[in-house]
């Protein structure tokens, strides 16, 4: 067996500054995360970036302390290159470059979306799933085919998480999971725009319509019920289409919204119809985290996908289908 190598991963695409250490054999040695919480409203990129700068040094010390290793033991430094907010991405990238140079180790630029998928596969044991990646800033359905994660469906406007968070904030009950919790007291379902186009979805019209219901004086619990049921039904339906299209037997839910209990229920009911197995990334790895970057960095180290410091620009619009997924064709022991 090849010798075990260790990778430090740094995540900073949005509200989370995360640090993780993973081995090329699939062990997570440490996962340390600092989450910026805006006083009100959504994320302000500059404020989030300041939060990240403030916690950067402490995070590096903490992750090595938790893993119980000396920084010199590291064989590579990985960072989240995108997609994400420019100012936030640059904090993680700068830190990673400095550490890679200081320690004299290779630098690894990781796609944030792929990191969500790979940590999901690692911790759940899903082998070749159709993936629903749902988070505050991302909604997509993807599966591995011919060397890449191909995108089968995505949002045509705002992300599912963004839709529910924005609704919760506007309604004065706060972001997810609050809309879902309040929905449990909902009694009446109001029709909202149900926009499914093939495997793609659209949420912005639905958000506007839900806010209109509130203004008309409909009970907030009923609007919560209507918006969550509609959003989740749309996601489940598009996922069902992708499952039928790809003919795969596994489903994997990753990203922050994978924590949703109701969505998971719906997807499990759908999967039963198709004899598919459902895997859900556990809460610890559902939101943005450093471990997922470390693990994907470790995979990239195995397949030789490192990057030179001078070429390591951040990529706010980095798509997952731009990445050559060489590690999945390596014969890794399963």
């Amino acid at each position, binding site marked *: 067996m090849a010798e075990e190598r260790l990778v430090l991963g740094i995540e900073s695409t949005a509200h989370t500054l995360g640090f993780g250490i993973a081995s090329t054999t699939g062990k997570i040695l440490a996962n340390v995360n600092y989450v910026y919480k805006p006083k009100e409203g959504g994320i302000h990129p500059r404020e989030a970036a300041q939060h990240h700068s403030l916690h950067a040094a402490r995070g590096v010390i903490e992750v090595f302390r938790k893993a119980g290793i000396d920084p010199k033991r590291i064989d590579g430094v990985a960072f989240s290159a995108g*997609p994400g907010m420019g100012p936030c991405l640059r904090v993680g990238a700068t830190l990673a470059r400095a550490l890679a140079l200081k320690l004299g180790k290779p630098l690894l630029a990781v796609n944030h979306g792929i990191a969500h998928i790979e940590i999901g596969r690692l911790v759940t044991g899903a082998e070749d799933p159709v993936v629903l990646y749902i988070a505050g800033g991302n909604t997509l359905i993807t599966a591995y085919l011919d060397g890449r994660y191909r995108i089968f469906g995505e949002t045509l406007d705002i992300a599912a998480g963004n839709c529910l968070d924005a609704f919760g904030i506007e309604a004065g009950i706060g972001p997810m999971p609050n809309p879902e919790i309040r929905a449990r007291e909902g009694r009446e379902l109001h029709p909202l725009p149900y926009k499914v186009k093939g495997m793609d979805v659209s949420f912005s019209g639905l958000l506007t319509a839900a806010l209109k219901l509130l203004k008309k004086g409909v009970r907030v619990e009923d609007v919560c019920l209507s918006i969550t049921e509609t959003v989740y039904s749309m996601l489940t339906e598009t996922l069902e289409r992708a499952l039928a299209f790809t003919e795969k037997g596994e489903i994997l839910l990753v990203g922050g919204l994978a924590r949703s209990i109701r969505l998971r229920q719906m997807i499990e009911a759908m999967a039963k119809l198709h004899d598919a197995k459902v895997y859900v990334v556990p809460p610890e790895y559902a939101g943005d985290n450093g471990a997922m970057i470390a693990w994907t960095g470790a995979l990239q180290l195995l397949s030789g996908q490192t990057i030179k410091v001078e070429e390591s620009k951040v990529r706010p619009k980095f798509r997952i289908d731009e990445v050559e997924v060489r590690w999945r064709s390596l014969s890794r022991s399963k």
Partner: protein
Amino acid sequence: MEEPKQIQVIRIGAEAIVSRLRWNGFDLVSKHRVPKPYRVPELDRWIRDRRTIREAKIIVELKRAGVPAPAIILLDRSSSTIYMQYIKGVELKKALDRLDPMKVVEIAGRLGEIVGRMHLRKIVHGDLTTSNVILDEAGRIYLIDFGLSSVTDDVEEFAVDIHLLDRSLESAHHKLRERFMRNFLLGYSKIVGRERALEVLGKVKEIRMRGRYVKRGG
């Protein structure tokens, strides 16, 4: 009259069960929108009924416009079922990889014309993938599954059709994608006009750029 007899289940789709039936000497297809246990019942009924009616109306309209699609024979709203003409053929998705390159070019061009004619009638397919194009034994192509179709004036919706087709090629036939789409667009612009085709294409690019990362609150 005898009752239709089910011969074969053609497709258990994500949304509906499509079966082949034999009825008074005719071959028919039934498309039954099945209740989805994962949706709350009221939402489920509403979605199925709305889609069944919309699909039937649109097919009738498309047949008038000369778009090759299965003809409607009967509509049963109580069970969300449409009975229609049976077209003997295979899904383009399954045929594409073994067709010869000249045939692929020809089909792509013809599909472009057909989609152009549909768009001229202000109808979008809504799920335009290679699974929803049938190639018959004579080499003719038909559009099927108008379950997500709608009538619209919005350029963006037309662009979504083309975007979906492009992405189904990209994900399942990425080696053929470029050639296919180039010829598709030639056929398309022949029908809708160059200017209109460019306008729609511009939107397709915009959609590709956009669906990627939307900032919270942004």
